[in-house]
């Protein structure tokens, strides 16, 4: 084995700086967009930008782009199962009131924390 160079893949210094710059720009973008009211698109854009940032970190800082693809598959599998977990729970959560007439309300309507509010609508908590 050579003693001069690493046997492992070395990512050029410039690549790290480029990725870092991209991450900073995306941070500025996501903060700037949050001050503009785009309705439900705010959430979509914020999550999209966060996912791009996360991909950059995973691909370059965590070397997944250059690694054995097995590592990437393992990581993506965890995200797949996370998506299944959250999406199916949301199916349930968001369609509950089709069956039960329940509206999310205060757990304790007479709590002191509501004193400043004009009215806290009644109803049972989830």
């Amino acid at each position, binding site marked *: *084995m050579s*003693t*001069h*160079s*690493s*046997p*492992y893949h*070395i*990512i050029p*210094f410039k690549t*790290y700086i480029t990725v*870092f710059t991209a*991450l*900073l720009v995306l*941070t500025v973008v*996501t*903060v700037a967009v*949050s001050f503009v009211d785009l309705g439900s698109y*705010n*959430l979509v854009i*914020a*999550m999209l*930008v*966060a996912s791009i*940032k*996360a991909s950059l*970190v*995973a691909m*370059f*800082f*965590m070397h997944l782009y250059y*690694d*054995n693809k*097995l*590592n990437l598959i*393992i*990581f993506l*599998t*965890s*995200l797949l*199962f*996370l998506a299944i*977990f*959250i999406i199916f*729970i*949301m199916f349930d*959560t*968001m369609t509950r009131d089709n069956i039960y007439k329940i509206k*999310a*309300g*205060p*757990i304790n309507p007479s709590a*002191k*924390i509501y*004193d*400043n*509010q004009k009215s*806290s*609508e009644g109803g049972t908590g*989830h």
Partner: protein
Amino acid sequence: MSHPAHLQHHFSDSQQQHESSKLGMWLFLVTEVLMFGGLFCAYAILRAWYPEMFFHAHKVLDVMMGSVNTVVLITSSLTMALSIHAIQNNNQKAGVKYLTVTLILASVFLIIKYFEYSHKIHLGQLPGKFYTFTGIEGNNPHLFFSMYFLMTGLHGIHVVGGMAVIYWMMRRMKRGEFSSEYYTPVEIVGLFWHLVDLIWIFLFPLFYLIG
């Protein structure tokens, strides 16, 4: 046949040992993703139930502090990656320097977090039954702060744990235990640190930017 001191007997060569260690770390990171995943799921449910409350509650968080912390953590991820870059080029000195900067940035992150937490504790913006603040409209605002403290708190514990292992790596690198031939532990610690960064990349918009 002689073999390098760092190579354990059950591996055929350094490369295989390195790959196996990384594979093991990725499996651990999967469990981390799933652990935080449970909290992200709880966040999604509560947000779906109380959209207005989340909107009003998120305004009490300081976007400036959150943004600065995001930049601090991204920069610390860069210096972590650069320390691995340095040791890959057999430059222990630069490697130790980059790890030191990473540690300093991690401390800055925690100090800013400390100011945010103490401000909220002072105002009674606390989880569950400890919540006494009266300035947020909407139902069950204490639930927002339950999620906020749970998620940023668990993330904060990871930052502290990350700092401990980065410090350990710094000591070992100073002692000259790593070289371009063998730096697997630094790489593993780097993966952990980047995951901490990854999680913050999602926590930041979910709490500070969109309520």
